[in-house]
């Protein structure tokens, strides 16, 4: 009798915890949806509410009024703001914001889809490299392998964290690509995997420095704990003690650091795409900005925003899974 009650109690508990996780995921995705809608609305409003004629912005001051009126009709700018907003949101839902203005016949979202892959690859590789390098740096700073030179490693971490990507990326490219020809030159269309690895390596450096600093602090907090002493006493090597026992406990702050650095990572990806002339969302947005290609600009900004929001949501989910203390 008591067994049955205990069993049903346990399954009820499990159901309740699944419900909690589902509710948290739902509220997080609703929040993400509102953020995306706010960003899209900002782009929509900026192009329509600010003073100035968008058609003149696209066609230039010298354009004839007849051409401007035709463009306005095509972009739907002659309808009321409410109707325009409704059709904008409906277009977003259908993933169809019209054709690109600089390449007629090509839908804006097709261009975005083409550019999404390279940027996601660059950013994804950078996150992986940054996390791995950062954890490795943190372990070097706390473990016994470097002995007295641990302080040098820490000073190097602080120094690298203080160096801005926009300054050292061109200089590093100059030294490695131009002076020593180790990596492909910027703008090389055949750069392939080597180019991707170099670009994502550069992008990973600021992230690795931040992860290294926070990871080092989190690991040092664990350093005096009894359970590590027990593991060492049982004969575990220092590597095992730090990697298998201490690192999982410190991984919560590390995951949070990655999540908060994602915005800066996306900005850095745009800078590097410009530096290396790689195809991607950043290049697409900048070209659309220069050509005043409104449909592509709207679509690309929304796509980049959703990439950011998705990545943040994934990072938050990973954090919650790793560290149950942060779940509630």
């Amino acid at each position, binding site marked *: 009798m008591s067994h049955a009650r205990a069993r049903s109690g346990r399954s009820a508990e499990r159901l309740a915890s699944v419900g909690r996780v589902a509710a948290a995921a739902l509220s997080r995705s609703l929040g993400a949806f509102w953020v995306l809608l706010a960003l899209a609305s900002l782009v929509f409003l*900026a192009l329509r509410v600010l003073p100035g004629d968008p058609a003149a912005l696209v066609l230039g001051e010298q354009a004839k009024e007849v051409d401007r009126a035709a463009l306005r009709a095509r972009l739907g700018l002659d309808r009321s703001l409410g109707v325009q907003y409704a059709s904008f949101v409906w277009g977003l839902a259908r993933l169809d914001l019209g054709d690109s203005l600089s390449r007629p016949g090509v839908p804006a979202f097709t261009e975005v889809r083409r550019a999404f892959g390279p940027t996601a690859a660059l950013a994804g590789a950078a996150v992986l490299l940054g996390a791995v390098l950062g954890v490795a740096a943190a372990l070097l700073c706390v473990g016994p392998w470097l002995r007295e030179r641990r302080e040098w490693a820490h000073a190097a971490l602080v120094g690298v964290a203080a160096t*801005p*990507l926009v300054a050292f990326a061109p200089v590093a490219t100059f030294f490695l690509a*131009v002076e020593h020809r180790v990596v492909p030159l910027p703008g090389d269309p055949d750069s392939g995997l080597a180019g991707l690895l170099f670009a994502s390596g550069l992008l990973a450096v600021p992230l690795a420095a931040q992860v290294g600093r926070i990871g080092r602090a989190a690991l040092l907090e664990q350093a005096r704990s009894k359970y590590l002493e027990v593991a060492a006493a049982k004969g575990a090597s220092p590597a095992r003690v730090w990697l298998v026992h201490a690192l999982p406990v410190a991984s919560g702050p590390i995951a949070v650091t990655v999540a908060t650095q994602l915005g*800066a990572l*996306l900005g850095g990806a745009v800078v590097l795409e410009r530096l290396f002339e790689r195809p991607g969302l950043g290049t697409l947005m*900048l070209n659309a900005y220069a050509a*005043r290609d409104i449909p592509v600009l709207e679509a690309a*900004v929304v796509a980049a925003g959703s990439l950011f929001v998705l990545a943040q949501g994934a990072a938050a989910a990973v954090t919650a899974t790793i560290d149950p203390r942060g779940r509630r």
Partner: protein
Amino acid sequence: MLLPLLPACTVVVFAAAVVLLGHRSPTRLTLYSSWAPPSPSRPFGSGDAGVDVLAIVGYGTLRAIGLALSVAISGFLIGAPLGTAAALRGGFVERWTLRSADLVQSFPTFLLALAALSAVRTPSRWHMGLVFAIGAWAPFARLALVQGRAIAAAPFVEATRALGGSFARVLFRHVLPNVLGPVAVQMGSVAAGVVLGETALGFVGLGPPDGVSLGGLLEQGTAGMLRAPHVLVAGALAVMVVSGSLQMASEGVRRWVSGHVRV
């Protein structure tokens, strides 16, 4: 306290000297000395179409620091009272202020800048300042919230409330003055962040149209990497020195505040 402020003051004085005493405009083209290496008459050499790199560094530095300081100060003036009031109010207001500050701070500034600047025919420094100001209040509000929470629990605040003090009186007369010190420390790192953000925007082409900015100089340096590396080196060093000196100044303010202000 003064020693950490020295680099920042040196940078400002140097840039001001270049602007006031230099006789070369940063936008003057002298095609015959395109990409010329450093020489006695042009200590930093020439860039694309013969612009004087030293002049660009001077003008660009002053613009960057001016923008950074005004954004940091306005962020402080908006964010600190907001965060403190939210801490005092507590509950729903406090949670939502914290959440929106987190969201605004982690959001990529680049996307906001692109969305806002794309609607303007000639983006100026005001538009860029506005874009940065949208996010500048967040770090101040967050820190003020945390500090305000600690002070709101202090006995003297409870006493003021018991004596019938209104919310405004408690906020402005008792809590805010104690919060301002530690929160002001953030101004340096926010300013450094704005300098780096402005440089990144200038590098990708969203900066001032005349190209006189540290980001524009880096863009020129990248384009001329193969034939004139001195432009790139000058630009990179300038950016690192400016942002580094602002960070160091914030360290100095932090040390002074923690030495003089008791929370």
